[in-house]
């Protein structure tokens, strides 16, 4: 796919705010911005070195990505893009500014609080069972269960579903590219994908994946160097 600054027809449609153009631009640039938001970056603020550690969960990542592109797709931002500079740098700049703005808002709140020393955890052995395993081992067990379930699910797919699975789920191809490769229509591919997804989540529910797990995501803050 050509970069936005080189595709005049797409750029014009994008500037007009046409939904198909916005979707196309999003699909092209979102992965790069997502990587930036996921892995974080260093920045300067008020003369101090700071670091945004990156999104703390997939929900946080999706939410921030949404906010970046809502800003990037606003009428003002679309009109403000000159169509000459590479668009990926333009939207990355929007992402960085959003993070820094957020940091500055929170900076004032942070100085009102301080972290106390943590109370040492006590081991709960009331059930007569050995203390919980190290977090890595617990996560390894959970990961193994998940992979096994996915493998079982894949094995039960029929031939056409398997083709769609390999191209869409494994290789991450767009629907139109799968249509080109397979001769299937895009709508058949989308329907197939939708059916596989729905069956997958029902399969996972049936195998107990969505019950009996620890729900809370524990807290964290932006890490700054030399601020607190």
């Amino acid at each position, binding site marked *: 796919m050509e970069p936005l600054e080189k595709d005049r027809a797409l750029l014009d449609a994008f500037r007009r705010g046409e939904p198909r153009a916005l979707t196309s631009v999003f699909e092209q640039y979102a992965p790069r911005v997502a990587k930036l*938001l996921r892995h974080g970056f260093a920045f300067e603020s008020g003369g101090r070195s700071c670091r945004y550690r990156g999104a703390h969960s*997939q929900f946080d990542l999706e*939410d921030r990505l949404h906010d970046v592109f809502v800003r990037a797709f606003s009428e003002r931002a679309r009109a403000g893009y000159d169509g000459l500079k590479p668009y990926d740098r333009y939207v990355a700049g929007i992402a960085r500014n959003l993070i820094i703005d957020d940091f500055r808002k929170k900076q004032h709140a942070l100085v009102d609080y301080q972290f106390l020393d943590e109370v040492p955890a006590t081991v709960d052995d009331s059930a007569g069972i050995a203390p919980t395993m190290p977090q890595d*081992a617990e996560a390894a067990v959970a990961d193994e269960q998940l992979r096994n379930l996915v493998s079982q699910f894949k094995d039960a797919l029929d031939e056409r579903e398997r083709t769609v699975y390999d191209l869409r789920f494994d290789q991450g191809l767009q629907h139109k590219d799968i249509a080109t490769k397979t001769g299937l229509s895009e709508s058949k591919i989308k329907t197939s994908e939708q059916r596989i997804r729905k069956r997958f989540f029902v399969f996972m529910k049936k195998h*107990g994946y969505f019950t009996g797990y620890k729900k809370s995501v524990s807290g964290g803050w932006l890490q700054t160097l030399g601020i607190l």
Partner: protein
Amino acid sequence: MSAQHHVDDQIARLFESGLGPKESAALFDHIRECSSCEGVYERYAAAERALYGDPDDALNVAAIDRVARRVVADAETSTRTTKTGWWVPVGLLAAAVAGAFLVARVEMDDQLTKRGTEEVVDAAYAVRALRIRTAPAEEVRVDDASSNTLRAGDQMKLLYSTGATPGRLTVTVVDEDQRVLYRSEPVEVRANEVEAKLPGSISVATDWRAGPVEIVATFVSADGERRVRVAKSTVEAP
């Protein structure tokens, strides 16, 4: 339907088939403020990531599509209400998996003890023991205890499945002389569990004699039925 069930249901629908723009926006507004619901979201996201198999990408194609729908819908309406809790960090993701692991499926002995004289095989009840071994280089390895040997320092993690009635589960580990090496307190278990994790783990101690061991799981259901399942392993000679 309780409020929690309603949100869980919405998250399920979001991942299975998608939500409309208003419902999606309201759901995201809620999750930003609720770490428990964020945990549910992460569970579904983890399953989706496993389905799409993209460990190196920040987001898989399904997640990209999901965000795209919200972004384009917002751009089309061209109105944004001020969000409360924008960018509020609600937690850190749990620790990432370290090291490689293997899993081998194993056949287990299956015994059923029932009141009366008739023995019935009840495949719903099962137990499986995983061996967790931390190698010298701090690599964590997870594999099946029944097709591998145990040594002091290993941990065993038990997975159990249950039938249609809730009850209590007790686990005992015995050696070939029926000496009890480990006994758990009874744990309440729910009905229709599938490979649920028994809390905690069993440490293989230095005084476990080399030779075969049995991990005996006794299920006593609420209606008084008693079922015994056994997984086997072997303790290595020192």
